[in-house]
């Protein structure tokens, strides 16, 4: 569509569902940035107020308002990439005269450092060896139990329709449409104890049931593929290597809840995934597994990919829905919850990629099987994205309840030679740090992790070895939250800024006592009063820093 006119682009998208983001992307792709003229045309075409549109566009990190912005290299300066030379790459590229800019963690912590240029992910360890690189596959299963999500993922050709079907793909859908009832599907999912794998851990069956019971139409299934949490890259792997499982899971979710449409809200930083999903959807539609009257079952389901534009907060479901609807992506006030008032105010199941990908497996092999995959009382499996100072970073599918030690040392090879693990993060960054003091007894399940004041979340674990400055790590983490704070609520908007300033030892001249009091007062207010999880979780960083590394804090505040 390089030569498409404004009118053609608007005509193409105007009557599509959730048209704003794809239309903006169409202009962004055509022109290489979003010009005033483009915004005027979109405002006019979608009858959305121009000022609103302008504000919304400026909210997103990756919508460029200057010519050439789309193709400017954007270098990941997330926590892990900073440890792997992200800043140096950025400086080198700038020195080479490129309009390079930083970007927050872009989900390649297993193979740093990614540099996004146009719609291509380059990766390399220095500015000289950047090259287009597909995302890494999970390593062969190192465990003793059975995998679920990754059971087929390493098979050659599994991310083609043919390959997927050869491995039994779409049999769950066929089975569902031919012999199951929506109630039956929900019963199975409920019995499996599958719970939200994006981090909130809400039981999937109960969520679907709430949507199914609502009598307001049309309902929607929204897949939260806005994997923005630093240190998390598991959904990327699922979508890159098992995309049809997601599609199949969503169609089944639609059947179970009575939703005739679904959206995959994909983070901007996965351009290759975006292209792949678009291709897969076209194939599945062509094969009659999607669209009107699927396999003559009378069930109709339409599925759309919508690409985000760079905003961590859009992983929060209220923000995501606002973003999808073309509104300013502030979180929504809850209640009401999306199950009753979601996309376009209609009942909506918002599920994570990992959750939805588990669905076909559960349908095929049964609720008891899935439940039994966990250790002890824990049901099922969880994907963990492991990164940082560890020999074999990558995605691992663990039985829930696995000792952290097993994952770190047996599966991932432990820290680099001669080093020891000083701390790990939980839930990417949102769970803050867990210090070496407690790691030996930790099991990877929420009851255990929560007893230490943290949570498993989406399953991102970054490892920091004994050479790392934990105050600096905390600063970088807080700087990320400050950068991503949407600005809706006071405690988060001001708090993340003030905490970042206080973690920057160079610019802070408070006494240790005053520092502690200020940081803890801010943290307390943020945790208790923030409007969404971002602001509530950010103080985990400062809390855990003080808890496990009081000496480093004191050293940094006394200089």
């Amino acid at each position, binding site marked *: 569509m390089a030569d498409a006119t404004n009118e053609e682009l608007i005509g193409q998208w105007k009557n599509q569902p959730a048209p704003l983001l794809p239309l903006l992307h169409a202009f962004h792709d055509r022109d290489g940035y979003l010009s005033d003229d483009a915004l005027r045309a979109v405002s006019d075409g979608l009858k959305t107020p121009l000022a609103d549109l302008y504000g919304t566009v400026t*909210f997103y990190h990756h919508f460029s308002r200057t010519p050439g912005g789309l193709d400017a290299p954007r270098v990941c300066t997330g926590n892990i990439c900073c440890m792997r030379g992200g800043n140096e790459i950025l400086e080198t590229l700038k020195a080479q005269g490129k309009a390079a800019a930083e970007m927050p963690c872009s989900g390649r912590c297993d193979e740093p450092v990614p540099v996004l240029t146009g719609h291509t992910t380059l990766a390399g360890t220095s500015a000289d060896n950047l090259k287009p690189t597909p995302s890494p596959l999970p390593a062969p299963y190192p465990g003793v139990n059975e995998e679920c999500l990754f059971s087929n993922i390493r098979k050659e050709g599994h991310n083609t329709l043919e390959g997927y079907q050869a491995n039994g793909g779409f049999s769950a859908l066929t089975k569902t449409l031919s012999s199951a009832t929506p109630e039956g599907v929900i019963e199975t999912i409920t019995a499996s104890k599958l719970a939200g794998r994006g981090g909130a851990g809400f039981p999937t069956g109960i969520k679907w049931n709430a949507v199914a019971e609502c009598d307001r139409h049309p309902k929607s299934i929204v897949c939260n593929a806005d994997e923005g949490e630093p240190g998390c890259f598991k959904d990327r792997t699922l979508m890159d290597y098992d995309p049809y499982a997601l599609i199949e899971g969503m169609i089944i979710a639609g059947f179970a809840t009575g939703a005739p449409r679904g959206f995959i809200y994909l983070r901007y930083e996965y351009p290759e995934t975006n292209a792949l999903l678009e291709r897969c959807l076209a194939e599945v539609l062509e094969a009659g597994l999607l669209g009107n009257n699927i396999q003559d079952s009378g069930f109709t389901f339409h599925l759309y990919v919508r690409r985000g534009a760079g905003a961590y907060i859009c992983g929060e479901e209220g923000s995501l829905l606002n973003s999808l609807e073309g509104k300013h992506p502030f979180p929504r006030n809850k209640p009401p919850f999306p199950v009753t008032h979601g996309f376009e105010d209609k009942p909506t199941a918002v599920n994570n990629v990992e959750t939805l990908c588990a669905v076909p497996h559960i349908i095929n092999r049964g609720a008891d099987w899935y439940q039994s995959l966990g250790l002890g009382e824990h049901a099922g499996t969880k994907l963990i994205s492991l990164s940082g100072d560890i020999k074999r970073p990558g995605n691992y599918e663990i039985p829930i309840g696995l000792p952290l030690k097993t994952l770190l040392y047996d599966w991932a090879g432990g820290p680099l030679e001669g080093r020891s693990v000083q701390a790990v993060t939980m839930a990417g960054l949102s769970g803050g740090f867990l210090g070496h003091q407690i790691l030996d007894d930790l099991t990877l399940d929420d009851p255990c992790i929560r007893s230490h004041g943290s949570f498993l979340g989406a399953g991102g674990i970054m490892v920091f070895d004994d050479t790392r400055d934990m105050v600096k790590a905390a600063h970088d983490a807080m700087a990320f939250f400050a950068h991503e704070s*949407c*600005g809706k609520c*006071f405690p988060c908007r001001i*708090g993340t*800024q003030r905490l970042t300033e206080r973690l920057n030892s160079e610019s802070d001249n408070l006494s240790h006592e005053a520092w502690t009091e200020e940081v803890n007062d801010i943290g307390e*207010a943020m945790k208790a009063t923030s*409007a969404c999880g971002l602001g509530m979780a950010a103080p985990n960083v400062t809390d855990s820093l003080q808890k496990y590394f009081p000496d480093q804090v004191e050293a940094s505040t006394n200089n």
Partner: protein
Amino acid sequence: MINDPNSAIAADLSITIDGQSTTFSEGETIYEISKRLQRDIPTLCYDDRLDAFGGCRLCVVEVEGIRNPVASCTTKASDGMVVKTAPPKIEKMRKTLLEMVASENRQVDVDPLRGLASQELSTLVNKYGARSGRFAGAKSGTTNLQDANPFILRDYEQCISCYRCVRVCAEQEGDYAITVANRGFDTQITTEFNNDLRDSDCTFCGQCVQTCPTGALADKKALRSEELPEEIKKTRTVCPYCAVGCSIDLMTKGDKIVGAQPAMEGPANKGALCIKGQFTYDFIQHEDRLKKPLIKQADGSFKEVEWDEALKAAAKGFADARAKYGRHSIYGIASGRAPHEAAYSMQKFIRAGFGTHHIDNCSRA
């Protein structure tokens, strides 16, 4: 409402706030009910004409059985809820939040001429003793002094990102002239492409100014009288322009009219005004005003005279016409702009004075 179907149900819903039990109707928020019970819950992002936003988080309250405090403005009451609006823990966090807010602004105390709600921040900061100077750090917002419009000062250095301005423009005015650009601490209230207000969809109704709780958006015209020493006095009246009949408070310092503010209780406007009601009051004390009666001289010029002479001259013309042409030669035109008393007197003047119905007003124009 004669037949309110909810009234029966409403009696059954009850909530306990600070130990006081009360009934409420479905859909009411904790904040609304608390306000009814005269609980003074602090807030900076609330304007009861707008959808509750839940941004400032000052209105959080403790609800029994819920771990975290909830924003009372966005939380609907449910039956049997037990709420504490000001336990010490919450009050401490409110103080912290206010100290945080105070730390991002250059100025907390602003002239009340800036706008109707302009004292909200300083009032709360005083109430909570939040002038501590804690949390020093970067300031947010960039003041736009380039915008030369004569009505609205855009002093965003005092902005606390409550978005009342943006929301009032969208929800109340339906103009969508201003927006929230960027995000987080870099948030900036602006128009599309950072243009001047004149080049946006702004209609200069001034609603953003009047709802701003810090005076970041301020009434430039009123601020011209900032230096006058007298106290501001407000007089409730009704706008003199179109027939919507918006209630308005005229602000005076001594005998000088210094500004206008909308009356939130105005039955016809509920706090809304347009550019005319908000900003065009200064014709009243304009130098062109007639000060004395005038009588036209033979050469066509006017001569200032005393009232007595003027009334006699006015009356004589009518007496003469009646004598010469009869009472049907006289006609009166009343004003659709003057008050009832003018129109009533005029028609009575014609009907009682001359016994005719030679009376009309300007509605045929």
